[in-house]
């Protein structure tokens, strides 16, 4: 009577899962033992009959119907398009399209030029004139140039505009302005 281990070895031999040394032992067993031989033939038969006669099945649903079902599911499972991303994609497409290369390049060059010249061109706010009116009698003009760190304050008598009573205070620096306020 063979053990289960021996029986499984015979099966592994049928399936080619044994090393050469183990396979030789099983061959010897099959040759010597009629029971082992019978089991070998039974297992071999079961394996071979299946491999050579695999049942064939055709799907009993038409390709059109089957595909329609799949297609619907595929469409439902796809994520909703994101409008912002779509718009960005559209913008990128427009910017980099071949027909727009002239205006895009010109815009780019202009942007670079402005960036490089920004320190050369003095900011407009540096020249803003602030008119102050401390009282009904006295008026003033102030002038500030941030880039020069300069602040000019002109105080005058309103009753004597342009006359001899006008007082002129200049120049002072930005720290003085703070103190004066």
């Amino acid at each position, binding site marked *: 009577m063979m053990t289960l281990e021996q029986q499984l070895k015979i*099966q*592994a031999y049928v*399936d080619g899962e044994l090393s050469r040394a183990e396979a030789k032992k099983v061959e010897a067993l099959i040759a010597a033992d009629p029971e082992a031989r019978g089991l070998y033939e*039974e297992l071999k038969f079961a394996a071979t009959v*299946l491999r050579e006669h*695999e049942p064939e099945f055709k*799907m009993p649903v038409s390709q059109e119907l089957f595909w329609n*079902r*799949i297609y619907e599911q595929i469409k439902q499972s796809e994520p909703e398009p994101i409008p912002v991303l779509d718009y960005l994609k559209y913008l990128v497409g427009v910017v980099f399209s071949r027909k727009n290369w002239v205006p895009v390049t010109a815009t780019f060059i202009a942007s670079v030029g402005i960036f490089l010249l920004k320190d050369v061109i003095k900011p407009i706010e540096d020249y803003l004139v602030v008119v102050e009116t401390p009282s009904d009698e006295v008026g003033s003009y102030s002038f500030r140039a941030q880039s020069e760190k300069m602040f000019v304050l002109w105080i005058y008598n309103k009753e004597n505009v342009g006359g001899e009573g006008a007082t002129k205070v200049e120049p002072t620096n930005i720290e003085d302005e703070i103190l004066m306020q």
Partner: protein
Amino acid sequence: MGLDKKYSELKDDVLVKAAKKGDTAAFEELVSRHRDKVYARLLTIVKNEDVAIDLAQEVWIKTWQRLKQFQGDSTFATWITRIAINIGLDYLRKQKRRKIESIEEQIEESGGIERQMPIETVNPTQGLEREELRARIDRAMKQLSDEHRTVLVLHEFEGLEYKEIAKLMKCSVGTVMSRLFYARKRLAHLLAGLKREWF
């Protein structure tokens, strides 16, 4: 190159490449080519036509969703068959969990319900047509338990080794060997008449 209207002339890998880019017409051609194979594999595992059709649909939807993961290490047919096998096995596991008593345990412990099933007898003097032989094998396979049938399908039809089957069925190699052994014994018993003609 115009993929346009000649999908049927293109190889699988070209169609897969196009489908990866969202070409559903290319994917439809792949479905058309391999749907019978997928269905057949599922049917041999689950034994029920309606279930096999539903699962086949699931297989193709998953395939579409995972298409980008396919690197071409195996053929597309092999890859999709593995997906089908996994989905079929998952279905069996879920079904088994629903059962109050595990029929399989009874089979493994007592020698089995399958022994009580009718044996396929064949008149040795009458030659068997190939289709008839296949039909007999199919009937015998249907009488096996889920585990025994599946292990035979994976080993004999898919040509997988013990360790590959163990991985797919989530069990040990020893269990695979044991199941395969009893499955073959049952099958040989069920096809006893055929065996006499065979040898």
